[in-house]
Structure formats: C-alpha cells, structure tokens
C-alpha cells in the first residue's frame, strides 16, 4: 500500500512519518502546493510547526491545495491520520470535531507517555488490543483537546474517543484525558502523541507506535482484498 505524507512550509516530522510509514508500506511526500495526492491510499498529515504555528496552530496550513484534496479524499472514505500539528490541521479543517488549545502548563513539553487504547475496532488501532498501553512520546505546546459536552458525549457513544493518556500523564489539560480521536465515519484520526517516533526500539526505546501504521496497512489491504 502507499502512504502520502503532506509537507507544509514549517513541517518538521514529515520525514520521520515518511520513514515510519515505509516500515509497513510505500510512502511519498506530497508538497502542500500540489493538488494531486499521487495515488496515495492513506494520507498522513505530519507534526511540526506548519507556518510557524503563527496565528493558531494549524490555522493556515488547512487552506493549502493539498489539504483541499485531502478533504475530498476523506469525504470518499480515504484514511487520514493527523499527528500533532497534523491533528491540529485536521481539526481546523473540520475533518475532526473539536479543537486543540494551548497546554494548561503553558509551555512546549516533551515527555515519553503511556497511552491507553479505548477503541480498537477501527482502521487506526485495529492492531491494538482494547485497553492496551502504548508507550509513545508527545511534544507540543497546543495539545489541550476540547469539544463541547454534547459533542463529547456523542463521540464517546460512537467510539470516536480512541486513545487517552494513562492516569497522571495528561500534561496538556485535555478534557477527559483525550489523546486521540476519530471522526464519526472512523476514517479520519488525529492524535497529539507521535507514533512515528516510537517505531524502533533503538531510537526511543519503544516500537508501540508502529501498531498505528500497521493497523492502517491492515485496513487498506483488507478493503482491497
């Protein structure tokens, strides 16, 4: 299968995402100015500081031509994964409900975290067990997930709350310790922690993040079969 990884001016983790994806399939970068997604079967909107995070994290990047195509791609059921800044972009683009706000601790924070899998039925966590703990690093200044109470209740019912921070790990103040959510249809997923930085025991000491990419591969190839 083939992943496409978007690249904006100011993206930082796009090469990391690219090589993580290449551990389970093919992957290519897609320049933000391109409309053509190059035949990608799943899209990754990577981490970093697109447009310097100026104005509001993700606010400018979501208008790029590539994002227009991604919105259409998602509308047709394509898999879209947003990591950190990518999660912020997907919220800004209304592909995911809610918004990400500045951390309650008011500064950029790096930490290796424990996450809990709340939903393992979908295309992004299919390779994980329900309740499984994943060790994945997070690093961001705007990671506080917010959605209004009705939306959250509906998301909860619909299995859209996919990952949460294990007890004591939520440094950004996200409501209900939410670390990753998907849309109603289940084909768009965003999370603040960085699974692409947990794909190799040598670098980072954990390969738990690989399960996210593996899940996507299983889902795409399953649908093809």
């Amino acid at each position, binding site marked *: 299968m083939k992943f496409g990884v978007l690249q904006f001016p100011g993206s930082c983790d796009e090469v990391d995402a690219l090589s993580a994806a290449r551990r389970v399939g093919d992957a290519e970068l897609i320049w933000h100015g391109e409309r053509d997604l190059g035949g990608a079967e799943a899209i990754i909107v990577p981490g970093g500081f697109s447009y310097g995070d100026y104005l509001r994290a993700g*606010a400018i990047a979501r208008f790029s031509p590539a994002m227009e195509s991604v919105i259409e791609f998602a509308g047709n059921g394509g898999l879209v994964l947003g990591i950190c800044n990518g999660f912020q972009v997907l919220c800004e683009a209304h592909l995911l409900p809610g918004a990400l706000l500045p*951390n*309650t601790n*008011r500064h950029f924070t790096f930490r290796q975290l424990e996450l809990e899998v709340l939903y393992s039925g979908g295309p992004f966590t299919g390779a994980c067990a329900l309740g499984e703990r994943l060790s994945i690093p997070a690093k961001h200044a705007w990671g506080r997930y917010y959605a209004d109470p009705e939306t959250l209740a509906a998301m909860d019912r619909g299995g859209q709350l996919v990952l949460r921070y294990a007890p004591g790990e939520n440094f950004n103040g996200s409501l209900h310790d939410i670390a990753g959510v998907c849309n109603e249809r289940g084909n768009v997923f965003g999370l603040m922690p960085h699974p692409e930085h947990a794909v190799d025991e040598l670098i980072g000491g954990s390969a738990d993040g690989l399960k996210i990419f593996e899940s996507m591969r299983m889902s795409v190839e399953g649908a093809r079969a």
Partner: protein
Amino acid sequence: MRARVLIRPKAGILDPQGVAVERALPALGFAGVANVHVGRLVELDIEDSAQLESMCEKLLANPLVEDYEVELLQGSG
C-alpha cells in the same frame, strides 16, 4: 481601511494564560485585579471590509473556542 480584530477565549473555556497572569500579580505588588483574560489582537489594512467577517470565521479566529470582535478604525469600505 484599518481594521482591528480582538479575539478572546470563549467564556467557560479555561484560559491558562489569564490564570497565570492573575496568579503572578500579587507577588509583583498588584492587588485588586480579577477576571484576567489573554487573547489575540490582529490589525490590518483591508480594501474590502466586507471580507472581514469571513476572514475571522475562517482564519483569524476559531469560532468553536474563540469569540471575536471587529473594529473599523478609519474611513469606511
């Protein structure tokens, strides 16, 4: 025309910066300050002020979590 957009966190949503400022003030010798909120200020020259509303909705503010207020400073479009 010069326009000014004031963007604030929506009521009810935690504003950690506002809280931090409020907490820091007494130690600096300032008393009697409450309800501090920190937001963003965007100022710009715009030819067609009719665009402002949609620019705020789409770009300058995130209406889900922020309120905004537009002030036109000179002339009129």
